[in-house]
């Protein structure tokens, strides 16, 4: 199989380039893209990428495979390979550190902006802040995000305004705390999102939904935030 990999070493390359590898894929089972990267690394140990848990939990190995973002460790070749060819590129829109490794700082800056922690100004109870099963259920489909950045880096609005548009991952988390019955900072959180960029740069193209490896729906969460902002404003 022809594997084309994005290569860039800032110490010796002036511009990035695609390097082709002809790889013998062992038969008998459907390999994951991460397995292919591991095989490539045996051929060329300088190929760089991030990986850790290799089971879709840590979110380290988000890459762009034949044009679509996803986690290399849980994406089978049968799902992405077209005409016996696989192109692997880094997540788009973020600065490349080396090969498939990107600098996630802009992504984390946006995540920090939404204050991803519970804020509660009431005196702490002796044991824990309780939540009814119904209120807990509201967090389903939100808390599962692993911050792999596949959605945010698939979003053109984030490509154009990475310094001001929070992006789908950050907004999914923003809604996760806005809807949490134990959080009392709803007003403060909404006030931080009402500018023309943070939320309203979302044009609803749903790239985020189509690439999320956990099957989450950031567009729906963004819609809920928009409704909360509208209710607060009119």
């Amino acid at each position, binding site marked *: 199989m022809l594997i084309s990999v994005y290569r860039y070493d800032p110490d010796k390359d002036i511009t990035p380039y695609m390097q082709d590898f002809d790889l013998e894929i062992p038969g008998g089972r459907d390999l994951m893209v991460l397995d292919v990267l591991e095989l490539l690394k045996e051929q060329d140990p300088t190929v760089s990428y991030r990986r850790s848990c290799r089971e879709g939990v840590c979110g380290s190995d988000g890459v762009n495979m034949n044009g679509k973002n996803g986690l290399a460790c849980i994406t089978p070749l049968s799902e992405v390979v077209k005409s016996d060819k696989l192109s692997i590129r880094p997540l788009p829109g973020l600065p490349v550190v080396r090969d498939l490794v990107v600098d996630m700082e802009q992504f984390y800056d946006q995540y920090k902006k939404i204050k991803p922690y519970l804020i509660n100004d009431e005196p702490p109870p002796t044991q824990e802040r309780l939540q009814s099963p119904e209120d807990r259920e509201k967090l389903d489909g939100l808390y599962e995000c692993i911050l792999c950045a596949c959605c945010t880096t698939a979003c053109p609005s984030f490509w*154009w305004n990475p310094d001001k548009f929070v992006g789908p991952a950050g907004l999914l988390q923003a809604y996760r705390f806005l809807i949490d019955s134990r959080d009392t900072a709803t007003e403060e959180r909404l006030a931080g999102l009402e500018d023309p960029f943070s939320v309203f740069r979302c044009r609803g193209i749903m790239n985020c939904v189509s690439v999320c490896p956990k099957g989450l729906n950031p567009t729906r969460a963004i819609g809920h935030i928009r409704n909360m902002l509208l209710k607060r404003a009119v």
Partner: protein
Amino acid sequence: MVTQVTSFTRNGVSDWLVQRITAVVVAIYSVVLVAYLLFQPAVTYQQWSDLFSQTWMQVFTLMTLLATCAHAWIGMWTVGTDYLRVHTVGESANALRFIFQLGCMLVFVVYLIWGIKILWGNG
């Protein structure tokens, strides 16, 4: 860095709301005009002139003209702040964006004044 001082209302919620409401106004106006032309396929100058000499039509048209300008300003501002950025067009992005916004503003003001002149002019 792009700031929001040139956005229509400087607030995302009201910009969003204004864009939706103006879209509805423009859509209703379009439906009314298309319906009129469908029911009057061979419209004469006199009929057309009579239609636009009625106060309700003049108010409706001016409202649509204002709605179009507001709608277009929000849309073009968004386009400018998306695509005319330092990492897409280079260091001159800020100057280019400012010229682009001034150009858009000029076009909208001309259309508005011209529209008012046509509506309430003496022919």
